[in-house]
């Protein structure tokens, strides 16, 4: 029973991690809370669903197409709604992001209608039993595997490649990065592309996991993905991964004892951690100067 809950928590938590990565990467570079990210996640789920149901594409390819679609959407949003505001104060892009979020959510409501859709039944759920205590469903295994592969890929990209170096440099100091010959506009778009692709993948995985896709599905996972990012220290990539997993575990285990306060638990944990360590678990303290 307990191990089962741990697996549930890890599966849910890894989707939070994927969403949180999108928030944290964008925040690391632009210091912007990208509220449209939850709608990118929702769009990703819809693209995946359409690919599987209408075009009968096999699931792995549908996942890739949905990641590519979310990627394009993310970059378009950046170009249209955030780039003109790069020199503005910090709150204007935030409102712009909220505007994009309202826009996409209601567009999806008009196109797809308010009812929830399910992935077709040919996704057979089998339970794999390991030993007497440990069991895991095939969907959970899928979620964990896809998330781990994506996160390892991202870790490699950020830390071992030249592009990753450019992303890190831009996050540290945009002006100096520019002086070193880095095209920061391109790097910012790339960051949005990567973050959005991960968000889209999370959307498809959650859509399969809970077997439901609807225009409003982005709201809570988006909020919790953001909470996970802050929990780990916003702007910090390993922090987002750890934050997501912790959030998923706490939520699932907490729900066993007080199910009606499931959503409150996540936020209570957030506030407690912020009060104990105001920059999140892995965040670094920035020295302030006058």
């Amino acid at each position, binding site marked *: 029973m307990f191990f089962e809950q741990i697996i549930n928590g890890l599966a849910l938590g890894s989707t939070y991690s994927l969403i949180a990565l999108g928030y944290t990467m964008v925040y690391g570079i632009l210091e912007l*809370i990208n509220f449209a990210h939850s709608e990118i996640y929702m769009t990703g789920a819809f693209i995946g669903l359409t690919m599987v149901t209408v075009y009968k594409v096999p699931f792995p390819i549908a996942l890739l197409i949905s990641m590519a679609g979310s990627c394009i959407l993310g970059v378009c949003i950046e170009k249209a709604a955030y780039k003109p505001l790069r020199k503005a104060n910090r709150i204007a892009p935030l409102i712009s992001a909220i505007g*994009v979020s309202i*826009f996409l959510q209601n567009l999806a409501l008009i196109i797809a209608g308010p009812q929830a859709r399910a992935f077709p039944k040919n996704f057979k759920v089998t339970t794999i039993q390991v030993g007497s205590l440990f069991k895991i469903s095939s969907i959970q295994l899928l979620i964990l595997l896809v998330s781990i592969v994506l996160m390892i890929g991202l870790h490699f990209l950020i830390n071992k490649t030249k592009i990753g170096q450019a992303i890190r440099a831009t996050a540290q100091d945009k002006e100096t990065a520019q002086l070193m010959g880095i095209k920061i506009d391109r790097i910012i778009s790339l960051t949005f592309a990567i973050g959005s692709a991960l968000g889209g993948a999370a959307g498809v995985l959650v859509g399969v996991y809970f077997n439901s896709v609807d225009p409003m599905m982005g709201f809570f996972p988006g909020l919790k993905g953001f909470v996970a990012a802050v929990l780990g220290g916003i702007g910090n990539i390993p922090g987002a991964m750890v934050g997501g997993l912790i959030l998923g575990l706490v939520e699932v285990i907490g729900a066993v004892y007080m199910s009606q306060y499931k959503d409150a638990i996540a936020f209570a944990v957030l506030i407690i951690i912020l009060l104990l360590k105001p920059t999140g678990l892995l965040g670094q303290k920035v020295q302030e100067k006058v």
Partner: protein
Amino acid sequence: MNAYYLQILTVIGINIILAASLNLISGYTGQLSLGHATFMGIGAYSATLISIHLGLPFIISLIIGGVVAAIFGFIIGVPTLRLKGDYLAIATLGFGEIMKNINLNLKITGGPMGLRGIPQATNIYIVIAAVVLTIFAINRIINSRVGKSFIAIREDELAAEAMGINTTHYKILSFVIGAFFAGIAGGLYAFFFRYIHPSNFGFMKSIEILCMVVLGGMGNTYGAVLGAIIITVLPEFLRTVSPVISQYRMVFYGLLLVIMMIVRPQGILSQDFDFTLFNHGLLGYKKKKGGQIQ
């Protein structure tokens, strides 16, 4: 007057109080809050419960609702205002969601059923009076020593502290005052619509209030008034233009938010805008007197 227009006017009034009070916290003191609707909800629930269970008159329950919201503002403000910037924003958001979850589960708040059958007591005159009093009080605060401390904290917290301003004290004060007015607005809301539900005071409402403040111009009370009017009227206006637009009105609403921010990121009325200077020439943008120390 037509009941439809009367309702829109009332909602505009309630939203003006909400926007002006959030503007005190976010616009003047510079503390970004994503949970202003929480205080509105606390005010709405406590005013309603006091009126129903204790049978106190409307105005008194309204004020008690505001006071309870202010007390919660203090309780939430003391720990969270140590946080800065986006961390503060997310903590206020978190408190809002927790409060919503609690309201959804308590018996006394009616849980997911909400509270219904609240007596109709709010009318347009009371709303107008509340709006005028709120604007007057906030203007007096801004122009006082306290308000100058708020603005100093917004401009540079470290420098303000170096000048001997107890920044924690003033940040909490600003939060408590803002929460009080939001609580009043919540009470007015409850006694006007006669039905309240936890989701009326959720994250989306907080965001809506923030949009009013930013759109009108942060740090300008008249900006908050203008923002409240625009954000309230815009969806209704889009509804009446044509049936096609009515169907897509929330899509247009989102789009217009983006466009307005791109066209005028500092908000419609900027911080320097002041109505008393209307007779000083073009649209009253304040001319800086003397040299400015850079």
